[in-house]
């Protein structure tokens, strides 16, 4: 009958969200007899009659069509094994990595070698969590140099912002920035600009769950810019 929590409330596993059949359990929730119960630590979101939990914490769960930043962990005969910052590593095959003809037994380190950072897309995840990657698509490339920062993967949508508003704000520091859905962020720019950007990213991560985030970050960016001018 009744909703026991409000939208955007922080809920913990085992807390009842609603009683009666008026609400439907969505992601992060389950039905126990006549009540909808929270299954993950996160914020409640209601879309019509469906209750979802937007997780606040947790490791990255690989999903199809996510663009991620991966680190080459191993080179094999037919491709590369990529560390994805999740519980599972991924496979990038030669045929998905380049349109060039690569003969059998060729040295694949010509393309990527161990430790290289790539911006890549997940094109398949099996039930056993075997992940296939592809480099075919706009923006997908090897990232040369730069710095890698890791953030909470659940806060990546905040870091991008509505219509990439937050990214535009962060590009104001003069750095190039790539954000992977898996919580890795690659930045490249002047050393002190990079330091400023890292500060901003950490600030977004800290305040990710508070309302009026864009405004807060705008103020913070201006503050940092002022400080930089003083020095």
């Amino acid at each position, binding site marked *: 009958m009744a909703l026991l929590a409000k939208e955007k409330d922080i809920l913990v*596993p*085992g807390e009842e969200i609603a009683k009666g059949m008026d609400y439907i359990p969505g992601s992060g929730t389950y039905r126990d007899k006549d009540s909808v119960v929270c299954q993950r630590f996160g914020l409640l979101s209601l879309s019509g009659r469906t209750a979802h939990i937007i997780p606040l914490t947790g490791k990255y769960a690989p999903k199809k069509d996510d663009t991620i930043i991966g680190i080459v962990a191993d080179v094999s005969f037919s491709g590369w094994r990529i560390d994805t910052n999740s*519980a599972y590593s991924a496979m990038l095959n030669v045929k998905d990595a380049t349109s060039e003809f690569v003969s059998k037994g060729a040295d694949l380190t010509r393309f990527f070698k161990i430790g290289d950072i790539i911006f890549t897309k997940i094109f398949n995840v099996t039930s056993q969590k075997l992940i296939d990657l592809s480099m075919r698509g706009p923006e997908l490339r090897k990232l040369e140099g730069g710095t890698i920062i890791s953030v909470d993967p659940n806060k990546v949508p905040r870091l991008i912002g509505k219509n990439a508003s937050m990214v535009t704000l962060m590009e104001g520091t003069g750095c190039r920035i790539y954000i992977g859905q898996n919580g890795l962020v690659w930045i490249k720019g002047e050393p002190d600009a990079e330091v400023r950007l890292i500060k901003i990213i950490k600030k977004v991560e800290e305040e990710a769950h508070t309302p009026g985030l864009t405004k807060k970050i705008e103020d913070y960016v201006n503050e940092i810019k002022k400080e930089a001018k003083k020095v």
Partner: protein
Amino acid sequence: MAFTRPDNRKVNDFRDIEAKAGIIKRADGSGYFRIGKTVAYAAVYGPRDLYPRFLQNPQKGILRCSYNMMPFSGSGERVRPGTNRRSREISHVTEKALLPVLDLTEFPNAVVDVFIELPQTDAGTRCAGICAASIALADAGIPMRDMVSAIAAGYIGGTALIDVSKEEEDYAGGMADIPIALLPRTGEITLLQMDGIMPKDQLKKAIMLAKEACKKIITVQQKALKEKYGRW
């Protein structure tokens, strides 16, 4: 021979408790739980790769718990550095107490590691460990049906009571010690051990007292998690 508790608590009174979440920054999730002078820290890592491979389960992820009393944590023969029979057993029962609430089907071939460390002990350590681990698992974002709360009940001098301290545990007149872990919302019991002899009706009473106590403990655990993100 009426037994009076050394600190004059009532049978259904537990020592003061305190809980925190997210205190170990490098862990994927962490919890702190203190009951009286017993202090437990729990850190969760994972889901992550599991090796050796023969341990992997392609159906769902596995849970691995480790319980450790630190060498300086108390007195008596229990506290020795390193693993021993007792700590292995408690690691095992902790795992069994937490597993029923976890949904690890999303993590085939992976492992969730829980490390419980006790820097200071005054009885009721496995229960404090389970409470801390439960906070840590929720903080790590692992899907779970409910949070687990635990408390050590006891039977001393003819009365059933809860939250036995070390002093009471060493009572010369003999006692029974009953650690209980349960899901306060539904009342399902996930851990029930008994060491000692006691009448059946007193055991039932002890379980009832523990159920009531856990209902209070769970609110402290929930508050700890929510306080991590503050109110606004």
